[in-house]
């Protein structure tokens, strides 16, 4: 297992003013007993509302923050004690921070990273070519980083994080603030990375489309605790998300009519449109049953909306 976390806790002390001179110190747990095991080559989505402890977890895993309690191993190393050794084996992108040199052209940042990580020139060139092809960097490698657009910079950040061939890639909101095209570029790139299978990716995001398109496995954290660890489907099942069928009918829906295996949740357009919520039965059976009741004109099956499920979890 490339990442092993058990019983991880991270407390922060918050000082608040009470009266004129007295200060009260309270301990807040940003992460409160997280267990997490990630295998080599997995791509997991690590999500949760603002302040749930996502970034804190990532900072502990990368060795920037010292855990208050618990055991953490990344690539077999203790992140805090072996931070500089671990740095050669992981890549990190913080969507809201930059690891590039502000005043230098993007290409020079890459060159500098080659020396800092002591990457053999041929390996560096090969990885840079791959990233450049997938992320279309050619147009702006000579532009100083401070003049890049956010989308260009983020593509540069991803490349910078991968040039030393890391075993684990930590991405903290890599699509934040990007336009649709840049988001697609980043997602496409991560999907390709996942297909190759030699890099483990831990992705935090607020953009649930990222999760839907990329992550087999989803870890949801709330108030510092893991509230779900499994596939997206398992999340839907557990939280009662259902598929729905919307049918346009040739004749009005008979009032009070029921359908086996589904609940009628809405009747609209003078009874010629019904919405059925499936209780787990296959859509084909329900559609067949529906067709026996009234003639159908048009039909669509809708997958459950991930936003709704997640919002339900966040609300508690």
């Amino acid at each position, binding site marked *: 297992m490339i990442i092993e976390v058990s019983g991880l806790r991270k407390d922060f002390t918050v000082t608040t003013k009470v009266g004129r001179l007295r200060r009260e110190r309270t301990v807040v747990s940003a992460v409160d007993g997280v267990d997490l095991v990630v295998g080599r080559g997995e791509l997991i989505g690590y999500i949760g509302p603002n302040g749930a402890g996502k970034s804190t977890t990532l900072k502990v895993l990368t*060795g920037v923050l010292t855990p208050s309690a618990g055991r953490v191993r990344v690539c077999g190393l203790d992140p805090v004690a072996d931070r500089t050794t671990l740095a050669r084996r992981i890549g990190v992108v913080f969507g809201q921070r930059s690891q590039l040199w502000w005043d230098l052209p993007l290409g020079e940042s890459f060159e*500098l990273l*080659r020396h800092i990580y002591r990457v053999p020139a041929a390996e560096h060139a090969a990885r840079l070519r791959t990233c450049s092809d997938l992320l279309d960097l050619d147009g702006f490698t000579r532009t100083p980083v401070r003049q890049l657009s956010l989308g260009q910079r983020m593509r540069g950040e991803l490349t910078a994080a991968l040039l030393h061939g890391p075993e684990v890639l930590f991405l903290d909101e890599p699509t934040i603030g990007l336009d649709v095209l840049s988001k697609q570029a980043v997602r496409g790139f991560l999907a390709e990375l996942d297909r190759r299978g030699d890099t483990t990716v831990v992705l935090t995001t607020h953009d649930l489309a990222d999760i839907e398109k990329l992550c087999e496995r989803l870890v949801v954290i709330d108030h510092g605790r893991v509230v779900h660890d499994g596939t997206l489907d398992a999340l839907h099942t557990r939280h009662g998300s259902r598929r729905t069928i919307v049918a346009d009918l040739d004749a009005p829906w008979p009032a009070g009519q029921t359908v086996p295996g589904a609940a009628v949740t809405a009747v609209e357009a003078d009874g010629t449109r019904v919405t059925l919520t499936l209780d787990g039965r296959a859509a084909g059976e329900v559609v067949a049953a529906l067709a026996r009741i009234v003639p159908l004109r048009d039909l669509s099956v809708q997958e459950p909306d991930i936003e709704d499920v997640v919002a339900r979890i966040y609300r508690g």
Partner: protein
Amino acid sequence: MSRAPLALLAAGFRRYSTYRQATFAGIFTNSVFGFLRCYLLLSVAEEAGSVAGYSGSQLVTYVWLGQGMLATVNSWTPLDLAERVRTGDVVADLLRPIDPLWTYLWTDLGRACFAVLTRLAVPLGVGAFAFGLYVPDDPLVYPVLLLSLVLAVVTGFACRYLIGLTAFWLLDIRGLNMVWVFFSGFASGLYFPLAVLPEWLSTLLWVATPFPVLMQSSIDIAVERGGLGHGLLVLAGQAAWALLLLWACRVVQRRGVRRLVVQGG
């Protein structure tokens, strides 16, 4: 030696070489103040024969080397470090396989190399052309002076890095930085040669503080004050301060990182 230090040095050099207008403006300002200070000191020397034991051409070197070193040691400009601690960007520095102390040091040395070629060389040339600099008798002074300049930059860097590190506790370093700017000017020999101070005070500054190492040391070596033997002693003092302060940076950084709370999640 690995290539990373050289690459960082080159990056620091290039970074500052992109700011051409600022470089020209800096050279101009330093030169104007050089003329003012030079005329002032030379007029005092004309009355008294010398100022604190510095003769005419020694005073010219004191002024113009000092004007150039002001930009080379760069005491007045804090390092990015404090701002990066405050905003949390320091995380990116900590996630590199090299200790940030060395990353910042090599980058700052690159900056200093650029400053030597522009903001030190040009005012020195102006001073030489307009007034005539002191010419050392012993050619060994030149290599010793070069080493002394490097140590002045390293010591100045270590001081600024230490101040930057206090951001791990204070978050806002402006107050401390003001105190530093005051002392690094007054006690390094920028405003007046330290020898004009009462002996007990100048001795105290030389022995107990790193400030003279930032400027007065190199100037005294350049004008052969006390001869080369004394110059080597001064150089040894600079090396001692540089090492001591770099060690202090390491110790303080370790403690700072341990208590790090990254701002803004």
